[in-house]
């Protein structure tokens, strides 16, 4: 049970996208061993999983390996994957929010639709983009990390260029936000 508590408190997802071991998983492995006298899921398999989880990418899928769980029909799973393949999915973080979101840039017509969607998603007002002054007057400023790793203000470049160069979005809040666009 302690493992569960630790998991619940550990919600600082912005900083901890990496998971090395899964809380409670060890406990589940033990239960599995006890309930299955002739163990079909040998310990070696489990340790192999844990051992190789050095990279960011491979940590999350380990938990998905329970056959038939969650109980979703395969044609549903397939339709989720297929739409992923064609979209341009980027993570969106907002300062102060407990978890990240993900959006598909492909479905938006342009900046105004994107901003409307972000406003709706996070329940805030970003307002109008101004070439000289950015999002002046708003408490929030949408920024994005581009291919070079630089943080840019959303709206500066043409939409198509933005779609291909945007790696992730971050909605800045407060004074940091107001600082942007004032003749930086």
């Amino acid at each position, binding site marked *: 049970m302690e493992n569960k508590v630790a998991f619940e408190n550990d919600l600082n997802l912005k900083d901890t996208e990496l998971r090395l071991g899964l809380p409670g998983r060890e406990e*589940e492995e033990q239960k599995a061993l006890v*309930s299955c006298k002739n163990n079909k899921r040998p310990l070696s398999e489990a340790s192999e999983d844990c051992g190789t989880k050095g990279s960011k990418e491979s940590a999350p899928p380990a938990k998905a390996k329970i056959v038939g769980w969650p109980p979703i*029909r395969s044609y549903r799973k397939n339709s989720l994957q297929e739409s992923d393949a*064609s979209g341009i999915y980027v993570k969106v973080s907002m300062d102060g929010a407990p978890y990240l979101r993900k*959006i598909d840039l492909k479905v938006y017509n342009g900046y105004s639709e994107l901003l409307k969607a972000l406003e709706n998603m996070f329940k805030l007002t970003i307002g109008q983009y101004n070439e000289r002054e950015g999002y002046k007057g708003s408490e929030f400023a949408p920024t994005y990390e581009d291919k070079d790793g630089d943080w840019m203000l959303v709206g500066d470049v043409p939409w198509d260029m933005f779609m291909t160069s945007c790696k992730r979005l971050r909605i800045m809040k407060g004074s940091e936000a107001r600082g942007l666009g004032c003749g930086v």
Partner: protein
Amino acid sequence: MPRIAYAFPDEVLEHVFSFIHSDQDRNAISLVCKSWYEIERWCRRSIFVGNCYAVSPVMVVKRFPKLRSISLKGKPHFADFNLVPEDWGGYACPWIEAMASAYPWLEEIRLKRMVLTDESLELISKSFKNFQVLVLSSCEGFSTDGLAAIAANCRNLRELDLRESEVEDLSGHWLSQFPDSFTSLVSLNISCLGSEVSTCALERLLAGCPNLQSLRLNRAVPLEKLVNLLGRSPNLVELGTGAYTSEMQPDVFSDLSRAFVGCKQLKSLSGFWDAMPYYLPAVYPISSRLTSLNLSYATTESPYLVKLVSECRNLQRLWVMDYIEDSGLEALAVSCKDLRELRVFPSDPFGLEPNVALTERGLVSVSEGCPELQSVLYFCRQMSNAALVTIARNRPNMTRFRLCIIEPRKPDYLTLQPLDAGFGAIVEHCKNLRRLSLSGLLTDRVFEYIGSYGKKLEMLSVAFAGDSDLGLHYVLSGCDNLRKLEVRDCPFGDKALLANAAKLETMRSLWMSSCNVSFGACKLLGQKMPRLNVEVIIDERGPPDSMPESCLVEKLYIYRTVAGPRMDMPGFVWRYTGP
């Protein structure tokens, strides 16, 4: 002494029986006396066989010589989640063959989770002169060639529904096999087909069939084509779109909207693959007509989603992805007072962290705002006893409640307690509950509640729950109307199973996988209960008789039958056969 039983001639009794349609009533009639049994069996027109192995085709044909309609179900429900190996069984062929010779006037065949071949489809198309309805739900084993035979030969076909079947898609040309003179189609569901169908053939078909009421297209039908198709089927009541996405073109948008409006009977929409937010508002003009909306393939977030749903004031059924979030469900609760069924599917089922703001709160809102809500399927990542108790108190009229908390064994997120009390409240307050699926952290306690209160429960699904055999015992001994029980990854074992062996003959089936049942118990059960098939699905360790009796079986499927051991068991299914 007057022989009252012979006061009515058979013809009169038969006439009276012709008004009785429900299977249960018909079964009851047949038990009154021998002559009623005889009269009834000659005039029964329709039967439902919930487990195709419970009885043999020969027995059915012998008892009911004049059937017009048959429904059969094959594989266990957990086959939907890949827990049943390939080639397990559920073959329709012996049934089709038996019926082809016995029922030349058969009109309707409905199969669920069965394996059907092209040869069988061809046999159907040639054997039944007045064949009208073919519904293949979650079936497999056939290709579009088989469908071509149906199209070419079934002159009076009214319904062709392939819902969620796996079809080997050789080409879309099978649709062209419907002859030009074909006019009888009322319902067509090809939503499961992968490849393109000829839109020409579709258009021709629709033009020829003025009575078409239900049309569910597959993903490959582009949005632009949808407009043309809608124009040709103005009497549609149900529509399943294809891919609901395209280049953003205002004229396509307005044409689409106009086409929706033009179908004045349109009440139900589904499809919406890859739904582009731009095109969702095309539905707004007809939203108040809609009673059923399936947006569970609309895998994109959009504020238009919530707006659309809130405009459908007369909605009775909503299937949607968790992109709707708690706020969307709150809006639903305010707008859709006639909602009867809600299903919320996960957009990121394997992600470890929540990707959307959908929690127990959404379901609680709907339970508060929608007085007619009876049927729920809800995937979420957190739940509390308090929420479940509230839901139970709000909706005592609930009949189907399926909750899937994505992480196995997750406790009440507020108190960190098991969810026993919450689910207990559900079974206690919802006195007409017929179907229940459990999830989250649960002890034997919840099963005690289910056994005590779940008197109308017919189907129960359990995963990663319970502490001991007691759980299974409570359910088997307490749930008087239990027909189907499916269990996975629970510490349920021999004692409870053997103590309740007699109960198993009153149920359709029991599935247990990754539990604590030993091979010895299976053998004993098979010995003592000849009217049960106790089938062990063998894993890589080898057949059960090669192992000590204390060894645990991985997968077990028990069902009652009057047909004895089935003849088509694959090598990996073992059944006790003798001392």
